[in-house]
């Protein structure tokens, strides 16, 4: 039994933490909330140089070829500092989509750019009540909103329907599209819960697009992609939740009322003990997700949903109550609590909200329990 990150992975964590404390100070995160939505933060370039983007991308495609567990560790560290970078969109979604479902040629062509950071990618999958994106004659028409990193992206993976009502993922190279047919894509920055996420609406008008791979995976491709990303995002959420707990614990140790530390009151202690318990339980489910992702287990849809639900709930609790324990100071722009509160809200909704993931967990569990062979042990234990 070794249900924990190994020594090398811990080493990567320590290194990443040191780097981010130094290079991603909270003041820069704060400034980024108000900055031009079309501009990527200077931190992004530094992260690119460290090679983190390619952690789980094979060496043949310009990555470091480590693996998903290493990527989970990095995700947690980025979450701890609410890093204002398009890491999740470009890596967990765009690069993963190409790696899992793209043709050999598409992998060769786009993965090295995504791994080096020369290209920023994202996944456009939400219709947002606008016209569904339709693929016809190798071009897409319609709109997607919101698209995280949509103001920054160079390449897009877009979910589209075919005239025969089939679901496909297509790849749009925005530089190429602009070259061939001028104004076939419009980007509009959207007012967002967390402005650092750079959400946009993308409207396509006969924009050239290529089917990802042979398109044979259909709607299962999008579903599988969201499962994989949910595990990684859960680590970002847990990183954020743990940091909220640390900030609150540090504050209530120092802050005094009625002649004693605020942290000596049981009402405060019990809240923090619960926060710790929620975080540790969510971490346990995230490990389950990481195991399923890294080992290619069939339990991935279940593990990803469980990881996602617990991580969303724990980050939300830690961000809200952590701010509350800072008193009036917690409500100010200059204290960091709101950065976590806003990121928690954003991450809770990205990839679909709690309601959708809860539904997914039940459906996946019911499907798995149809046979004892596919029933996860934890479901059968009393």
């Amino acid at each position: 039994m070794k249900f924990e990150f190994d020594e090398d992975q811990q080493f990567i964590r320590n290194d990443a933490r040191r780097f981010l404390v130094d290079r991603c100070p909270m003041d820069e995160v704060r400034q980024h909330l108000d900055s031009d939505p079309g501009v990527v933060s200077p931190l992004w370039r530094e992260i690119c140089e460290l090679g983190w983007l390619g952690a789980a991308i094979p060496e043949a495609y310009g990555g470091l070829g480590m693996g998903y567990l290493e990527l989970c560790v990095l995700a947690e560290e980025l979450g701890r500092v609410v890093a204002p970078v398009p890491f999740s969109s470009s890596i967990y979604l765009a690069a993963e989509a190409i790696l899992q479902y793209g043709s050999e040629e598409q992998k060769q062509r786009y993965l090295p750019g995504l791994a080096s950071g020369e290209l920023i990618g994202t996944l456009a999958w939400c219709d947002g009540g606008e016209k569904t994106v339709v693929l016809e004659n190798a071009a897409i028409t319609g709109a997607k909103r919101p698209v995280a990193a949509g103001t920054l992206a160079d390449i897009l993976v877009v979910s589209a329907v075919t005239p025969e009502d089939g679901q496909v993922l297509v790849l749009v190279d925005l530089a190429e599209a602009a070259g061939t047919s001028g104004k076939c894509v419009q980007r509009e920055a959207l007012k967002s819960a967390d402005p650092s996420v750079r959400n946009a609406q993308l409207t396509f008008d006969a924009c050239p697009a290529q089917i990802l791979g042979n398109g044979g995976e259909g709607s299962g491709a999008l579903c599988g992609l969201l499962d994989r990303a949910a595990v990684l995002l859960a680590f970002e959420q847990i990183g954020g939740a743990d940091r909220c707990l640390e900030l609150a614990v540090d504050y209530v140790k120092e802050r005094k009322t009625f002649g004693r530390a605020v942290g000596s009151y049981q009402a405060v202690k019990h809240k923090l003990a619960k926060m710790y318990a929620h975080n540790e339980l969510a971490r346990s489910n995230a490990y389950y997700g990481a195991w399923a992702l890294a080992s290619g287990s069939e339990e991935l849809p279940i593990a990803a949903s469980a990881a996602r639900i617990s991580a969303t709930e724990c980050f939300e609790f830690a961000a809200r109550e952590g701010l509350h324990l800072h008193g009036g100071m917690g409500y100010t722009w200059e204290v960091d609590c709101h950065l976590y509160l806003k990121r928690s809200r954003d991450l809770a909704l990205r990839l679909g909200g709690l309601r959708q993931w809860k539904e997914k967990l039940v459906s996946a569990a019911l499907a798995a329990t149809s046979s004892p062979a596919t029933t996860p042990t934890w479901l059968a234990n009393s």
Partner: protein
Amino acid sequence: MDFSDTPEEANFRAEVRAWLKANGGALQSTAPDELYTEADIERCRQWQRTKAEAGYAHLVWPQEYGGMGGTWMQAAIFDQEERRLPRPFNYFSVGIGQCLPPIMTYGSEEQKQLIPRTLRGELIWCQLFSEPNAGVDLAAVRTRAVREGDSWKISGQKVWTSGAQVADFGILLARTDPELPKHKGLTFFIVDMRLPGVEVQPIKQISGHSEFNEVFLDGVELPESCRLGEVNQGWQVAMHALSAERFKRLNTRMPSMLSVLELAQSCDIEGTSAIDRDDVRQYLAGAMANKCALENFMSRMLTVLSEGGELGSEASILKLMSCQLNQDLSAYTMDLFGEQGAILDEQTHVLQDELYDAYLWTPGLRIAGGADEILMNIIAERTLGLPGEPRLDKGKAFKDL
């Protein structure tokens, strides 16, 4: 990141499985009505003896005391495998889990002779700690131990003593010096429960059963050889007893999530199967995510044991959070049946009895072995490093409190 056993662990697990298959075939679970009956105790005794003969009565303690001389990970593996079988209520767990560890650490060779006898299923133990005015605040015990010549005279009252009605021995915390501050005037003893002056009265619990008791001690005479540890050093010995249970299992009496899902599939609400209702699915998903997290958290704790580490105060998350889940889930599940849910027979559902048993057991478990609030204090102070509450009893003689 892996759930699987190391090769050594896998070998051991296979060995245990084979042994359980060969020896545990006839085991039956104890029905609530059979608790503390002669017949059930005898079944448990036989199973304990069978385990002891194979070395499985205590996986870690040395063979000279009846153990196997193995590791805590092996103990956890044996426990996991034994859990798969129906098995009688374990009347020896208080003795082995809490009473014997301080004897192993502080006991004389004569006292240690009780260890192998207990492991073989000959002796049942109880813990004479809590009193009417000393539960959470255990160091406030008032039961007096007064030295008279070569022996001690014990007088006082204990309460919530599980298994006292059948116990052969008890471990006792008593006050030897009320002039000292409360943690410092206590001494630890081993009590033969058959001595004159020991009187046991069962307490009827909310379930209607009587698992625990009041114990009255009226001038019970104990020889010096029954003292464990030094005079007035009883608090340290008691702490050892309370923290001794190294591997904390999820002891919840709650049916599995799989059976809850099956129940929801078979339950009809206004013409629709409960499992097809969105509100039911949303609730069950939340409960499942929590149950899944508790199981995965346990795997993380096992990893600590597997690497030779010890569990810290964070392990109390298991009891704290599983009680919360099970109290809520058992009530919710009964709720699915509407008014019929109040009726505990098979016409409502075959699981009704088990669910209500879990519902009534959980309030007790939330208090026993560290109430919710105490566990949260422990996590806050020991794990998160928050300051303790200001105390009014520190440094004062017990008699002045």
